[in-house]
């Protein structure tokens, strides 16, 4: 009964309906988009862990992520790991954070030295797929495009003078991109020998990852073993500590302002209908019924507003992806849930505040007022 009355009351004046729903749409859209950009940026941070094929990663003891770390351990340890039962192969990767210079412009990059043809290299390509030669480097296509770089251009990275040989896709994050080069060339440029930064461990089908990890910890001293998920979690945490904090702060401000706009919108809508609620009270409607009608009315406008915002946010996400994806945006269920709960909470409060005034009155008094 309350819902039917509320919806009749709400849909009776189209202009007011549009205005009240539009307020919620704008507020929820703000929250969903800011959340989506943060989620997209956070997801990009673990792109290496998410896309390179491995089950376990081995690093120097204590090193649990890539960002701003250095990791080196003896390559002989990786050979020992390769002999452990259940390990299919153990691939060495060298790593450093560096500035790469292309066409006189610099960009911060994770530089990966890997064995061409083995895990550790690019997973998606813009153009022809290549294996880096001794004097070649593969950089992200977006960086190359921004700097006006072309295949064959000279690139300086990690102390080596190289040539742009291939363009990878999907390696940029809010902090940097990833560049790939031949492992031997990396060794020569950095003056390294007999060490690796990370070992990417691929297990036999059906092998127990926990058992293998335990065995590596027991038998190989001076290394840390992590699953792919643990490695990604750790990277996400470190970057979040240092960089996405800014976006989190912006997001938080957007969330608070968004909820306040929802509250204002619902409060205004209830105020607009106050005289009608007064009449309901005057003709004998109980306070409980009044509350039901008001709550149902705000629930309807909030639901319509949320659906509208979700639709626009998904369209925006699609459009951003279609036009090159320079701004990462991913609308997540967690964000939808957050905005729904938040809007429902502040919306209920904002609609009940003005109605409390009427609820306190006796039916006869309503007429007088």
């Amino acid at each position, binding site marked *: 009964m309350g819902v039917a009355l509320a919806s009749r009351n709400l849909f009776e004046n189209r202009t007011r309906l549009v205005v009240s729903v539009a307020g919620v749409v704008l507020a929820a859209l703000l929250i969903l988009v*800011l959340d989506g950009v943060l989620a997209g940026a956070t997801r990009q941070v673990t792109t290496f862990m998410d896309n390179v094929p491995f089950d376990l990663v081995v690093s120097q003891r204590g090193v649990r992520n890539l960002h701003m770390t250095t990791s080196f351990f003896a390559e002989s340890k990786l050979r020992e790991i390769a002999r452990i039962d259940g390990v299919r192969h153990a691939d060495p990767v060298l790593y450093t954070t560096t500035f790469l210079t292309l066409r006189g412009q610099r960009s911060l990059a994770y530089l990966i030295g890997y064995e061409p043809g083995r895990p550790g290299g690019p997973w998606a390509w813009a153009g022809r797929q290549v294996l880096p030669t001794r004097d070649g480097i593969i950089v992200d296509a977006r960086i190359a495009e921004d700097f006006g770089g072309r295949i064959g251009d000279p690139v300086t990275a990690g102390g080596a003078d190289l040539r742009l040989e291939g363009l990878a896709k999907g390696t940029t*994050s809010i902090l940097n991109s990833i560049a790939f080069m031949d492992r031997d060339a990396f060794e020569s440029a950095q003056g390294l020998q007999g060490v690796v930064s990370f070992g990417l461990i691929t297990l036999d089908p059906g092998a127990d990852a926990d058992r293998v990890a335990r065995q590596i910890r027991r038998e190989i001293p001076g290394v840390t073993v992590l699953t792919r998920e643990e490695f990604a979690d750790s990277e996400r945490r470190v970057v979040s500590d240092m960089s996405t904090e800014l976006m989190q702060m*912006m997001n938080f401000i957007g969330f608070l302002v968004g909820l306040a706009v929802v509250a204002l919108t619902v409060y205004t809508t209830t105020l607009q209908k106050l005289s009608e609620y007064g009449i309901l009270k005057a003709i004998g409607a109980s306070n409980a019924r009044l509350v039901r009608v008001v709550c149902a009315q705000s629930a309807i406008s909030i639901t319509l507003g949320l659906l509208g915002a979700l639709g626009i946010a998904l369209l925006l996400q699609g459009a951003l992806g279609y036009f090159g994806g320079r701004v990462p945006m991913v609308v997540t269920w967690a964000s939808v849930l957050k905005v729904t709960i938040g809007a429902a909470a502040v919306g209920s409060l904002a609609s009940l505040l003005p109605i409390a005034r009427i609820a306190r009155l006796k039916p006869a008094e309503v007429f007088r007022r």
Partner: protein
Amino acid sequence: MVQIARKSLLRDKARFAVSSGGVALSVLLILLLGGMQRGVNEQITAYIDHAPADVIVAQEGNHDFLGARSRIALEDEARVARMSGVSRVVPVISQYAVVEVHGRKEFTLLVGFDRTKGGGPWRIAEGKGTPAENEVVADAAVGKARRLSIGDTVEILGKRFKVVGFSSGTSSWMTGTFFMDFEEASELVASRGAPSFLLVQGDRGQSSEALARRIELRLRDTAATPREVVNANDRKLYARILNGPIGFMTLIAFLIGTSVVGLTIYTATVERSKEYGSLKAIGIRNTALYAIVFEQSVFATTAGLSIGIALAYAAARLIPVLAPRFMVVIEPSAVLRLGIAAFAMAVLAAIVPVRAVASIDPAIAFRRGA
């Protein structure tokens, strides 16, 4: 006319508060997010902005400060100091380093400076700003985040240092800056006394471009770059990728914020359409009606704008206190731009609904009411 407009607006205080509140929230959102983006860019160039430098001299090919691995010849400092038109030369060592703070690794910018020449921290939050042997001045934001106190020790490139001071305004969204004595830094990075950069100040009235050209002609294997160019290069290097998503967040906040301003004023005008109908019914001319509506929307927007700007400035001061890594820079030009956009949106949003009332005959206005 003005009196009618204000009386009508202020009669229902709750509704007036709601309209002004909607505008204020939008203004707060836009100014804060824009201010945070501006703050990121300013933090990146904080060191050079405060350094005594018109021109930065670096190893050949380096035209930025933060991305450069630079080392210049020991004798270049004296060569530049002897040049006419040069009033001050400050050698500094600058290198990124991982600092171990209470067992956690912190990526920092390490600056070695000579206390007699300058180039050290420009604002000290606690302790002293002139580190001696085995001492370091830590970034206050890093110190707060890692619960570092004066007297604690940190490990930098394998050597332990005692924290003797905290510098403020020296952190960016990515790193904090740690300061140590020039000789100490030279030993740590094995530069044998050679600086990474020379910060050169010219005599008053001297063009920094001309000074940079003269220095390049005098020295070999070096690049001399005006401060503004170095700052622009550093911003491009560090904020290029980050500016994509945060610029988009700021843009969305601006679009939604101005839409909320429009919606708020539109709602307030629709709410008063009954009153406008009555005015129309008693024969008020359309120009007078528009004047009233214009007056009301400008009044509500001004109130909301003032509250929003005051709240944004208050938040801009509060945020760095609560979270020292962040800097919010609200520029007067941003406030002006926002003010123009808000007034334009508000007037548009008020005029649209009132056009319907203005177009009807006074006699019909009685019948239609709202």
